[in-house]
């Protein structure tokens, strides 16, 4: 009897050593073991706080009538006024429409292109041909955006550009491509999103295709399936998870990365189709100093991007039971 009571008494303190205390002890152990590593983490985390998270505080200017002289602390809080100005303003519909259209065209044409390249390369038996094609298609990625745009501008020049020389030889009239809004999207997607990146992006898919179990192909060949049938029924379904992950990773970017190139390629006469939300942010914000409304536009862009990423992740889970999270 007495011993039982003592056992009960001695059990209680053990359970009261709560999760909290166990946690603290874990931390102490970790600090002791990894002292130096925690020290290393300090500059690392500081960088993120200083250059990634601290700027986020600046988002408050979307709700302010911001003046550079008054700074964030001194500028007047105006609630959603800037939002109303942006959504009701002259530029919202144009920039939103262009952002969506370029994004959708990019999805339809630029996203599948590297997949196609990887699939075609997979069918090539000749090692030398395959590696030559890979080497050559890979090259444009390493050339800077400025240089590629420089090449595009000069090739499309109405007076000395190769493209127009070629058009003239065929008997047609020269076209001043870069001043006409109807050509902009095509030029941008073809050069920046396809030509520049197709070889580089294809590598991820080539690696994925290489990872497919060869016995699947052997079995299919024995069943008499043609190479094309094998591509559709084995290769593509096998790399579908990779395709979905790439989709999720890229879909957020589709809205924003392009602006570095678009800024170099567009001009006032093509703003109608070329001006996207990010280029508007650059013009209104960094060039014209309308910091507050530009921040609203950027915020809107980021939110739309986030929605797309979440949507893509859901789609990926539905199609392949696999998502980024």
């Amino acid at each position, binding site marked *: 009897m007495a011993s039982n009571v003592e056992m009960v008494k001695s059990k209680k303190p053990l359970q009261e050593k709560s999760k909290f205390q166990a946690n603290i002890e874990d931390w102490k152990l*970790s600090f002791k073991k990894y002292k130096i590593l925690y020290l290393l983490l300090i500059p690392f985390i500081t960088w993120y706080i200083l250059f990634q998270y601290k700027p986020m505080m600046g988002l408050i200017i979307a709700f302010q009538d911001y003046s550079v002289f008054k700074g964030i602390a001194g500028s007047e809080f105006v609630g959603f006024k800037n939002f109303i100005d942006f959504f009701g303003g002259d530029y919202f519909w144009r920039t939103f429409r262009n952002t969506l259209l370029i994004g959708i065209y990019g999805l339809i044409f630029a996203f599948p292109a590297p997949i196609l390249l990887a699939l075609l390369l997979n069918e090539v038996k000749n090692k030398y041909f395959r590696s030559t094609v890979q080497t050559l298609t890979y090259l444009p990625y390493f050339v800077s955006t400025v240089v590629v745009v420089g090449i595009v501008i000069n090739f499309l020049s109405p007076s000395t550009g190769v493209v127009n020389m070629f058009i003239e030889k065929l008997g047609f009239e020269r076209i001043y491509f870069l001043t006409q809004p109807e050509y902009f999207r095509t030029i941008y997607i073809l050069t920046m999103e396809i030509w520049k990146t197709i070889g580089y992006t294809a590598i991820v898919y080539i690696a994925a295709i290489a990872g497919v179990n060869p016995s699947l192909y052997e079995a299919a060949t024995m069943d008499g399936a043609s190479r094309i049938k094998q591509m559709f029924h084995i290769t593509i379904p096998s790399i579908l998870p990779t395709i979905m992950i790439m989709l999720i990773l890229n879909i957020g970017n589709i809205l924003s990365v392009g602006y570095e190139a678009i800024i170099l390629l567009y001009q006032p006469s093509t703003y109608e189709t070329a001006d996207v939300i990010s280029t508007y942010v650059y013009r209104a914000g960094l060039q014209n100093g309308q910091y507050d409304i530009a921040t609203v536009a950027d915020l809107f862009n980021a939110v739309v991007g986030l929605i797309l990423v979440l949507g893509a992740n859901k789609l990926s889970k539905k199609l392949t039971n696999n998502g980024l999270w």
Partner: protein
Amino acid sequence: MTTNYILLGILAILCFYPFVYVFSASFSSGKAIAEGSVWLWPVDFNIESYKQVFTHPGIWIAFGNTIFYTVVGVAVSLFFTICGAYPLSKRDLKGKGFIAFFIALTMWFNAGMVPTYLNFVGLNLLDTRTGIIMGFALSTFNVFILRTFFQSLPESLEESAKMDGANDWQILWKIILPLTKPALITIGLFYGVSRWNGYFWAMVLLKDENKIPLQVLLQKLIIEMNIEQQFSIVNAGIYSQETIIYATIIFSTLPIVILYPFLQKHFKKGAVVGSIKE
């Protein structure tokens, strides 16, 4: 099957031909370009355009700046990346999950153009080389790639070193880093290409003409086309606006092309790891 070869062949040519043209055109006369006689080989071979480019003072300053930003930038980036990737690769480091989430968030959501710019202003880093080097030191993507490499090293390596009395610092320097050299080279190249080609924030943040890198100078020349102000187009037949632009393009792209086989090998490795890392 042959259609496959033809399609791929056309694509490869399309990817390569522009460079062939630019190369040949840079050695041709302005007159020949205007007449459309240049297709594959230089016409009226001359190196006048290059002479013009090499004697432009701004070019060498910009070139020097690019080298500075690239070399110092990669060193700084590697330092910070190792500082993050190595601790995060330890399985029982308390807090690693939270930190990983903390930095992963920045891959999808960042403050945006204007707040980022104002942040630089607030930190007094506007128009400074330090701003360019420090402000863009880390790529979260690269941190995760390096972390994966560190994770692939066997734990027994460290354990035996610790038993021999080594502390974490010595382990990192003498054992781990030498073993991950290929990964470090790959990540270094990722950062390097990004630095060499980077133009947007350099353009936005730098006002002093002595601090701008090559790509920003190119942007002024090629896009803003103020060639006439910068070069004296006296002899318009031998060289022209176009030939000078093409020569400048070759000049700024040559280092990349020379390093290309090297870059290709390591980028392929990196892309494979990056895609399988999950």
